[in-house]
């Protein structure tokens, strides 16, 4: 019997040894992640178009205001379902661990890129966990408040005073999730070698050693013991 995984997801494995590459996300997870990403970008553009008059011109991307108004909620449902799959896959490894507190208290070292001063981490660091839980919570708020203001299908779902609160909450949550989205994209690009985890599915051994050493150790420890895994 293999040891229980603590820091890794089933499917994560050392793919090649010289040089070391580590499989981080399977094809399905990556494809689904890009569905979520594309939905979020469409929602961001269509939502911002209806949020601020200076951005109304963005409706032209979708074929006008009527189409934008129609499209936005459906893409919202797509994002919700696609993110739900991501959530079910990732939530366990995003639970907080004691080393997260140490990581957060050393946030200055994180920003300076001095990772030798940070504790060894599993598959996700506290920043990634923040993005995960932030997105999860905000998506629930956005889909809930969004349905309440979905004029085409749910005009009578809630009273008008509740609808006012829903539209305010929806825009505040949207601003928050866009800020988190920017942080997510920025961090993925700033931390070189990260993007390929969501394109090719693998990262280099050095990347895993530097950022997620406990994850790498666990995967290395499992090597060659059970070829069927």
């Amino acid at each position: 019997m293999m040891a229980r995984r603590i820091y890794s997801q089933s499917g994560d494995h050392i793919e090649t040894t010289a040089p070391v590459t580590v499989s981080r996300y399977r094809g399905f997870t990556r494809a689904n992640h890009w569905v979520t990403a594309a939905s979020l970008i469409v929602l961001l553009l269509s939502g911002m178009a209806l949020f601020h008059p200076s951005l109304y011109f963005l409706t032209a991307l979708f074929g006008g205001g009527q189409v934008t108004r129609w499209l936005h909620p459906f893409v919202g449902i797509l994002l919700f379902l696609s993110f739900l799959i991501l959530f079910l896959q990732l939530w366990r490894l995003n639970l907080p661990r004691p080393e997260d507190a140490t990581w957060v208290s050393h946030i200055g070292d994180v920003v300076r890129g001095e990772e030798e001063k940070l504790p060894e981490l599993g598959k996700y660091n506290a920043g990634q966990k923040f993005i995960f839980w932030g997105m999860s919570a905000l998506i629930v708020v956005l889909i809930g408040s969004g349905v309440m203001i979905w004029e085409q299908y749910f005009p009578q779902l809630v009273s008008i005073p509740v609808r006012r609160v829903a539209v305010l909450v929806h825009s505040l949550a949207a601003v928050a999730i866009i800020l988190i989205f920017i942080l997510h994209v920025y961090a993925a690009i700033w931390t070189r070698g990260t993007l390929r985890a969501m394109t090719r599915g693998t990262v280099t051994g050095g990347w895993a050693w530097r950022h997620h050493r406990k994850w790498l150790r666990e995967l290395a420890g499992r090597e060659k013991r059970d070829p069927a895994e």
Partner: protein
Amino acid sequence: MTTDPNVDSPRTAVSNPPIQPMKANLGAGDVMRASAMPDLAPPERELTPVAKLIDVSKCIGCKACQSACAEWNDTVPEIEHNVGMYENPHDLTPDMFTLMRFTEYDNPDTGEFEWLIRKDGCMHCADPGCLKACPAPGAIVQYTNGIVDFIHDNCIGCGYCVTGCPFNIPRVSKADHKSYKCTLCSDRVAVGQGPACAKACPTQAIVFGTKEDMLTHAEARVEDLKSRGYDNAGIYDPEGVGGTHVFYVLHHADKPALYSNLPEAPRISPVVEGWKGATKTVGLAAIGLAAVGSILHGLLGRANQVSAAEEHEAEELVERSERDA
């Protein structure tokens, strides 16, 4: 004279239309505010503010106004079922811009039974919540004469006007996904005619003219009602929305809620103000700063690179564990 070229808008609804064609006297140059267009050019002229006065005490509930409204606007309200009340249809709809709302009221002070009939519809607020909430440029406009009008070509059917309106008036059509409400017959006013409902009203409970004239008339009506024992008679021209261009004379002005829940002190909800005020401005600024800041930092800052030594460490780790296995 309503067709007097020196008069910018009709002074009454009762005169008959001119027989010669007239140019529309209400256009883009008369728009003083438009939805989602903060930088709108100022209007070319100032029209005299107009108003429709609805004297509830004179209403006999005949619904001629509703018929005239549907006739003029060429709408066909759906035929509904009789559920034991006089309201027909049961609510404002995208095809019924005005509705007689009937209330049976047992007046506890007099012991009298009163039938309160209020013609509901757009109030044409001076500070319109629909216009504030609307995200589509130019879908809702306010003319200098006070009329608030929906420009359907620009409407996207989002329902934000429903959210913004303090009087629960706009209705979004399931057929064309555009929002509808009373236009104060802007297309009639443009050619010197008063609104169709006022024209049709057999008791002149609905009258139309300049806001000033209508207020004078309303004050006289209130005096008359007071002399007949309605001590609380008064004008309903709510200040919270800057006054309205459709306003009421009520026999119980101290209790507007009696009249099918006419709001006591209507105003644009603070929630809507917060959404269309600070949230909109601060939210966009925060997003813009975060986007620009991260792009600049990404270009100018030092990236987090994996070193060759770290790659080597990883190789050793994997080799070691393979040996140990």
